[in-house]
């Protein structure tokens, strides 16, 4: 069997990977396998590249749209980096953070597919960007905990949580008054 990458050498590394239940077989020569970073934590490009080729689930939907609109969308260009929508489709990579706004209306189906149906970030927030955001998200979280504690009739802890929520709300109100949001 020939190496899939260089098409020159005999493939000696036979590589099976499964991404979201889809099995892919890769056959490479030793040299190419090394270049692709096999046994290497730092290279994810191989698996992700395969993954990306399946990343656009809305091809059919797009095909059903009027031709003019498809052409317009394909030509849609990011002002931040000059990337067109067609180029993004081909490469599967953004060129700058503004791309996220430019192509916004097309992205959620991609995110959903890649991230098990999710489109909202719930993780870390940079401290210097998100002082208030941190607090608002913390309040949301505490409210959920409060609900659970009340259901469990754990009123003592519930009171503590309620105090914490009150403090956070005050802090937000004060800093908004101070205008340094």
């Amino acid at each position: 069997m020939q190496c899939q990458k260089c098409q020159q050498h005999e493939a000696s590394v036979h590589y099976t990977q499964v991404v979201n239940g889809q099995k892919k077989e890769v056959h490479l020569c030793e040299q190419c396998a090394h270049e692709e970073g096999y046994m290497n934590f730092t290279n994810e490009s191989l698996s992700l590249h395969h993954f990306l080729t399946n990343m656009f689930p809305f091809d059919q939907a797009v095909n059903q749209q009027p031709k003019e609109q498809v052409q317009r969308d394909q030509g849609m260009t990011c002002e931040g980096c000059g990337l067109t929508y067609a180029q993004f489709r081909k490469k599967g990579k953004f060129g700058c953070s503004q791309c996220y706004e430019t192509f916004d209306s097309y992205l959620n189906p991609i995110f959903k597919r890649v991230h098990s149906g999710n489109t909202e970030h719930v993780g870390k927030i940079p401290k210097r960007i998100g002082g208030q955001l941190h607090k608002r998200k913390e309040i949301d979280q505490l409210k959920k905990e409060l609900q659970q504690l009340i259901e469990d009739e754990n009123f003592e802890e519930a009171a503590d949580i309620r105090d914490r929520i009150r403090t956070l709300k005050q802090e937000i109100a004060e800093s908004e008054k101070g205008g340094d949001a």
Partner: protein
Amino acid sequence: MSLQDFINDAISPWMNNEGNDSDIVLSTRIRLARNLEQVPFPTSQDQASQQKVLQHVEQEFNEQSYESFKQFQLVKMGELEPIEKRVLVEKHLISPNLAENTETGAVLISENEQASIMVNEEDHLRIQLYYPGFELSEALQQAQKLDDWFEERTRYAFDEHKGYLTSCPTNVGTGLRASIMMHLPALTITNQMNQIVPEINKIGLVVRGIYGEGSEALGQLYQISNQMTLGKSEEDIVEDLKSVVKQVIESERKAREWVMQQSGIQLEDRIFRSYGVLAHSRIIESKEAAKCLSDVRLGIDLGLIKNVSKNILNELMVLTQPGFLQHYAKKSLHPNERDWFRANLIRERLQLEQYKN
């Protein structure tokens, strides 16, 4: 720490410590993808902005110290020989992709090589942290601290809804990829990986194995990592991965016990044959070397082989790759010469073990 240190030793200092469950888990890695605000991503091929990022990192972080990581050293791709870059790739300090960026690619490496921050890879910054053994929570905590240190002097591209913005849609949100490298010989020998892998995949994790001709993974090494980066907190991502890895560790332990009970003498035979091959062969291909190293490592973990250090699998796996071989040979080698050189190197390394004891 100089560039020469990074390149001369196959084993990074952090690998010498023994982590949790080190009979099965070789290492833990946390990676965070980050970009600077209002600067096009490296994928846009805009040289001027990549230079800007590189300058920023050089000014703010080169030769700076941070807590237990101590001093960071910036190494630019443009200043390295091809073999030197290859060695850094084999040590997992950089990616092959970064090695190709000779114009603006660089890496900031901590003194013990535990942390490396790739500059102008696919994203402006790729913060990577390694731990020996199974150490996910600690690794995440330390990676977050390192990220905070960067954030003190850097404005990250961040969106309230989409989180940390990355070049690739597969990293957006937390930008976090947590990976565990596992040695699973007994699950492989007993053909259980065929059932385990699809199960793990169903819950949104990725398993990668490297297969030789048969059904056995090369070196019987598998990497398990998270796929999802959006819609889950860093802590939850790590907890979910942790609980799966724990189950795999349990299964591997049970499988090892079972194999020992059912066919102890056959297993022992296989292990010592492999030891014999490594100790005496004059020519060895990387695939055969990987299989034998895996067997010997299992022999060590089962207590069958004594007086050989556990690290030998990790060390020789790195050492016998083409870049290191050529670095040691101090010249480029043809594949045939490599096999010959590889056999020599392994024999010498095993002899060294005997002198040590």
